[in-house]
């Protein structure tokens, strides 16, 4: 596609990045609908036309799955939406998801040549647009599937890593069964990232799609409990483990077991997976607190604070021990949170949670911090300011300081090598683990990371698995 580009007329640089229409902050703060409406075709075409169709597209280098970015953008510019989606899906089976949640400002868009002028092409928004057009046109193309190979594969975990592997291997003619511990598939996309950022219908569509391709989905099945990995190995030629990083960290400060103190996972699961926002229509309760403090500064923390605001909190705080510059969350989400009235308490460390006589949290004690020298992560280290303790009245706290991998599978699989952090040790290029016929990828290997990196790891494992399956003589 890129070969026959018309690059004759020299383009003038258009630095007018098309904004994506959004719900206005005071309205969206009160509902759970998606914040951004997405591009209209007019906006998308205008944005697509800004792309310079670089001969050496640096943007592609920034994409962990090597999407042909100029190619699909050119299709949009030419209103060839089917071509755009086909090109995207060649490399990325979840464009509707990645277009929404990829940290583009650190990946593809950061590398875009127009970024030097401060206006990179809105690659993510265009990716999302192409995926939406496919749905609007109600024409989902079914790809051709290779003839059956007779090889059986189990995929454990149905997050982005698992979905990628399942989707890829089924197309190569293998028989794929995907196991999921929860009652719904999708991993963090389903139980973690809120509706207002990634509608559940979008995720469900992708799950339905791979099921239509022939992937067999078994929910309510905990590998390591319902059956061990070893038992599955007897039934399958190869296994991929993509079980994510789902074990919540706590802070180890007094009062963490008070009522009204949640892990981010609990709060978001009640909300998303269990449909808490529809309570009492669904029967899993979620509390509506007036003053909520979220500890942490990543995407997870933003999601919790913005959820709390939508549930009616008058004051929703982000309590973060460094400054705004060090916030690990995506900039777009920080800005959205600010617009929605989330209160940021930077350079603040919670030190104690204080309860009332019924065991409910009533206030938190915090310590002021200042920034010192950069640490290993390159970010400036927060240093407590002695004697700066102060008290804030609070009705709920959500701890969003990170997750580590769940040990259920390693604990029941003695010869599976894990690191001191609890992550499964897997070859970076192939995803092979210490056990023959077992591959792993995604957050279970890297620790909590991103959707696209999990998918990238899934893609690498697929290649290695397919290579093995094609050569294997095993019946």
């Amino acid at each position: 596609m890129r070969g026959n580009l018309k690059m004759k007329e020299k383009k003038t640089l258009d630095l007018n990045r098309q904004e994506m229409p959004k719900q206005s902050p005071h309205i969206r703060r009160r509902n759970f609908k998606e914040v951004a409406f997405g591009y209209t075709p007019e906006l998308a075409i205008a944005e697509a036309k800004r792309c310079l169709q670089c001969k050496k597209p640096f943007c592609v280098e920034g994409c962990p799955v090597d999407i042909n970015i100029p190619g699909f953008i050119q299709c949009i510019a030419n209103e060839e939406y089917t071509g755009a989606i086909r090109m995207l899906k060649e490399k990325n089976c979840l464009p509707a998801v990645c277009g929404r949640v990829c940290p583009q400002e650190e990946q593809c868009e950061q590398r875009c040549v127009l970024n030097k002028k401060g206006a990179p092409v809105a690659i993510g928004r265009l990716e999302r647009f192409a995926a939406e057009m496919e749905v609007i046109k109600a024409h989902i193309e079914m790809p051709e599937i290779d003839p059956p190979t007779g090889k059986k594969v189990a995929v454990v975990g149905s997050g982005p890593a698992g979905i990628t592997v399942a989707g890829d291997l089924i197309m190569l003619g293998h028989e794929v069964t995907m196991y999921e511990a929860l009652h719904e598939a999708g991993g963090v996309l389903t139980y973690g990232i809120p509706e207002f950022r990634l509608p559940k219908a979008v995720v469900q569509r992708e799950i339905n799609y791979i099921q239509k391709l022939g992937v067999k989905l078994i929910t309510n099945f905990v590998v390591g409990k319902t059956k061990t990995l070893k038992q599955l190995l007897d039934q399958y030629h190869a296994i991929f483990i993509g079980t994510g990083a789902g074990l919540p960290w706590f802070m180890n400060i007094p009062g963490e077991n008070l009522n009204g103190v949640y892990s981010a996972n609990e709060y978001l699961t009640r909300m998303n997976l269990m449909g808490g926002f529809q309570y009492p229509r669904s029967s899993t309760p979620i509390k509506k607190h007036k003053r909520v403090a979220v500890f942490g500064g990543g995407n997870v923390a933003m999601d919790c604070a913005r959820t709390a605001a939508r549930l009616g909190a008058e004051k929703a705080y982000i309590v973060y021990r460094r400054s705004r510059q060090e916030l690990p969350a995506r900039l777009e989400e920080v800005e959205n949170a600010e617009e929605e009235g989330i209160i940021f308490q930077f350079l603040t460390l919670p030190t104690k949670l204080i309860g009332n006589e019924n065991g409910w949290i009533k206030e938190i004690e915090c310590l002021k911090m200042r920034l010192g020298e950069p640490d290993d992560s390159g970010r400036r280290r927060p240093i407590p300011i002695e004697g700066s303790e102060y008290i804030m009245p609070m009705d709920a706290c959500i701890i969003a300081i990170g997750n580590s991998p769940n040990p259920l599978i390693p604990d029941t699989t003695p010869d599976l090598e894990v690191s001191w952090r609890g992550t499964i040790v897997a070859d970076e290029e192939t995803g092979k683990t210490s056990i023959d016929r077992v591959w792993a990828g995604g957050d279970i290997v890297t620790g909590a990371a991103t959707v696209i990196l999990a998918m990238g790891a899934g893609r690498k494992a697929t290649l290695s698995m397919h290579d093995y399956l094609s050569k294997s003589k095993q019946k």
Partner: protein
Amino acid sequence: MFEVIEKEMIVPNLHLLTVRAPEIVEEIQPGQFVIVRSDDTAERIPLSVSDWNPPEGTLTIIFMEVGASTGKLASLKPGDSIPTVVGPLGRPTEIDKFGTVVCIGGCYGIGSIFPTIKALKKKGNKIVTILEARSRNLLYWEEKMAPLSKHLFCISRDGSTGHKGHVKNSVEILKQNKIIPDRIIANGCTFLIYKSSKDLADFNVPIIVSLNPIMIDGTGMCGVCRVTVDGKMRFACVDGPDFDGRLIDWEELLKRRKQYVNEEAFLVHNSGCGGI
């Protein structure tokens, strides 16, 4: 989907539910639980497994109707099916040759302790079973326990079973019968296992209780089931549900159990025993 084979109210407010879940049945061990959803909008609720039948691939739960989700389970009929039965979850109860084991069951715990008693008996332990209920008509399965037990005592608050009182009275019953336990195991509502841990502490032996905090996923993902045991944070769904009752921070646990009382009251106007 999981098929309902049997549903019966065995005593007032306590129901027996048998479902087909062959893959779980192949793996299950005493002391483990499953998480169940009765329909697509229902909560995920943890329930201990009280019996299972490998040839049939079925497992049996005894549950008390306390709120919306158990209410929905109570209204099931054979032939219905439910969307979620996941397990077996939690660590199995430790089974070994301990000597004399006193097994205390109350409420749904009469059912859930039965597999433990069977396994302990098979290992050659001397079993002393103590069942506790408000009244005689709330007792069940004595006939299943009796053949496995060297002694079987039934304590009821109104004395209709012979022994009047609460679990506290088991101390004098044991002393009168010159029984010196090597281990005590208690299953049932939080109040019963709490009282057992306190009242029988003087025997100075492990008092293994099966905790029942609020849970969501049952796999260690959400942390709602956290309890403090011996000063450390533990997740009941993966580190338990069995812990030594002497080491549990009961005050904290009892408060955490009541977190959703207001919301649940909204869903059901008259819940059973208040749920603790």
